């Protein structure tokens, strides 16, 4: 049973993590990002769109379209985040309101388009895009290690992609000049400006990156949870990612831990329901476990956490 908990837990925690990292990029640059939900949905939609139109051009058993769909999801998320960045940075609108608008708009657009496309191109009244099953693999030898071997057993290959992205994003945020500028923008944009760096440009890039990462997380969720894209993707995972990054104090590694906790809480809850042989209607109840856990963790552990100082502050050059 623990095996399932670990396997399913990771399959949930890692996509959540990549979305949360997207959030960290945006918020550490000073832009409040409530739009993660909309960004992950739009990214998933873009990836799925690619599969339904072009997936057929590849040979039957090829996994290439599946991997390409991840790239498409990143591009779609980035594109949609550009809209969010324009609202927040170029037009200096309120970031909270813009985020909520982006979420509502994303759900409306993708639902509408999915229906219309199904109707007009495939002549079936459905609000789902079938995208197939993501390949899973096991690593021999490693998978036979007691307990932690489960990490290497029967896992989605996107786990590898996400771990690689984790390394890259960590490097970029903490070790590169761009990351330094980004973090400085979220603390004191006046200081960044005085150092001759364009605050708005840095923030723009951060938000677009945030969209790309959310898009990747979104399409992975679509594969692992349902093997299709449907409006059901808007389940609040974007908000859960925000909770994870707050709990992780806007830092990548602690956020990783937070996501693991959420992931295992979820898979553990599912197993518990099965073990107790509860009827499936109770499944809804166990699904709330991660959210209840979020509340508790936030109450007890995030008191000392500090948001980036300039978070949500619209940068005004003229201020003296």
């Amino acid at each position, binding site marked *: 049973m623990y095996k399932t908990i670990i396997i399913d837990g990771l399959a949930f925690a890692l996509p959540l993590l990549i979305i949360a990292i997207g959030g960290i990029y945006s918020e550490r640059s000073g832009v409040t990002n409530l739009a993660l939900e909309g960004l992950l949905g739009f990214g998933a939609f873009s990836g799925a769109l690619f599969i339904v139109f072009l997936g057929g051009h590849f040979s039957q058993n090829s996994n290439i379209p599946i991997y390409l769909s991840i790239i498409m999801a990143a591009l779609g998320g980035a594109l949609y985040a550009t809209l969010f960045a324009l609202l927040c940075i170029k037009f200096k609108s309120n970031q909270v309101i813009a985020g909520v608008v982006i979420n509502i708009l994303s759900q409306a657009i993708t639902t509408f388009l999915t229906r219309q496309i199904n109707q007009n191109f495939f002549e079936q009244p459905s609000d789902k895009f079938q995208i197939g099953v993501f390949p899973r693999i096991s690593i021999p030898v490693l998978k036979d290690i007691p307990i932690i071997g489960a990490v290497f057993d029967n896992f989605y290959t996107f786990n590898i992609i996400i771990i690689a992205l984790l390394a890259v994003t960590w490097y970029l945020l903490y070790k*590169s*000049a761009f990351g330094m500028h980004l973090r400085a923008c979220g*603390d004191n944009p006046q200081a960044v400006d*005085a150092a001759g760096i364009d605050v708005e440009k840095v923030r723009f890039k951060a938000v677009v990156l945030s969209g790309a990462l959310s898009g990747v997380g979104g399409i992975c969720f679509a594969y692992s949870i349902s093997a299709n894209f449907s409006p059901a993707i808007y389940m609040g995972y974007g908000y859960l990612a925000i909770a994870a990054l707050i709990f992780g104090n806007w830092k990548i590694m602690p956020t990783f831990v937070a996501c693991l906790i959420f992931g295992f809480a979820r898979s553990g809850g599912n197993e518990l329901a099965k073990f107790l042989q509860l009827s499936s209607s109770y499944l809804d109840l166990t699904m709330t476990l991660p959210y209840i856990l979020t509340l508790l963790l936030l109450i007890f552990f995030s008191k000392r956490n500090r948001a980036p100082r300039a978070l949500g502050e619209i940068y005004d050059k003229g201020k003296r």
Partner: protein
Amino acid sequence: MAKDYDYIIEFRHLTKRFPGVIANDSINLQIKAGETFALLGENGAGKSTLMSMLFGMYEPDEGEIYLRGKKTKIKSPRHATELSIGMVHQHFKLVENFTITENIVLGIEPKKSMIGIPMVDIKGTDIKISDLSREYGLDVNPTDVIEDVNVSTRQRVEILKMLYREAEILIFDEPTAMLTPQEIEFLLEIIRNLKEAGKTIILISHKLDEIKQVADRCAILRNGKLIDVLDVKETSTQTMANLMVGKDVSLDVAKEDSVKGEVILDVKNLFLKNMFDVKIVKDVSFQVHAGEIFSLSGVSGNGQMEIADAIAGLLPIDSGEIFLKNRKINELSIRERTEQGISYIPEDRQVYGLVLEFSLANNLVLKSYYHEPYSNRHILNDEAIFNHADKLIDNFDIRAGKGKDTIVRSMSGGNQQKAIIAREIDLDSDLLIFVQPTRGLDIGAIQAVHQKIIAERDRGKAILLISLELDEIIALSDRIGVIYNGEIQRIADAKDISREEIGEAMMGVAKNA
């Protein structure tokens, strides 16, 4: 060094206008390479504006700047940096959660390569910063995070920022306004070292003795116009002061003996903790009577500011009691305390004293807008608010481009301070708490504020003065309490304690004599 120019900086007919004021009026000024040049002038005379143009923050409306003999249009702070100009602003621009090194290299990060991957090299630069800081006697620890270091260290980081960028012209805008006397000495020493190293230094200050100590020449500005350029060695501080204000000023204040009345403020066994749960005020008791000026003297950071905050209601009390006119006020909110008769001029005027985006008129009724005549049944009465503003602007000589309609952010630092003082005195409270009331004010204004404080005392008000300037304490106080390490060392009548005794007690030398 062969130079093909006489002056490193030359302003020709430089003019800058803001709505309602000519901040700089056709200024002609030459500064030589390697000299320390001071700018002196009343609050709002246009000193910061002139330097902002040199640093590329404002564009001149008329006139030209010649840099190293060449006519130069300085487009932005970045451009100024490229031209080897650096500036330490009145308000620092540092990233709080970065280390000192990270702040210094921001924007021009040194790179290194690890297994072929380029990275910002902070560790390697720490050593360089260490060396640089030692070279000029700046003494900072490169790995400290800014949010953990004090004002004086932050200022040194700003100086290092300029040096790291190889600035040749260094501008300091009121660098000593926020520092303690010891820190000021230290800074002046640094400025001397910089001059030694061949830098050209421009220093804005209101403190004549500092200018006397470090500057070679000094320009005097009044109302945006250049009045005179003086050789500092050959000019007395009295002459400088007179030129600056435009009439004879006396540097000390006249005051009668106090007529002590009943006890207004009674602080009993006060204990306070800061936000890290550290005890910063221990068992402090004192009284302030009507008609007297009681001052707390001490080196910055010994708990005196916290005592003021606790009395005003900004900081919760750990234990002890505070009575105002025999009524315990421990549990009262800030507004209730104001209504009971406390006026407060806080240390940080931009955070606690003013709403920077509001007009001057609105700031002047910030603590009374909900009363008649400023509002009627929750509707503000603009006419009453404007009349009130005009009255205070007149009485307190607040200078602002558009009068009562001026947005406070655009006012000069000294005039912001005058606005707070005007508002608080006007509340007509029984107790007035002044914390560093003359910080950033020019001598003329300091004298005016001192006269106001004494006038309030003579009207029978109780006055608690907290200041880091010993001169100010000695000039004004009737009784003096000296605080060290959160404890009162000594309370004495002003005439019974000498300047040296105060100084010793401030260092914790003489205990309860």
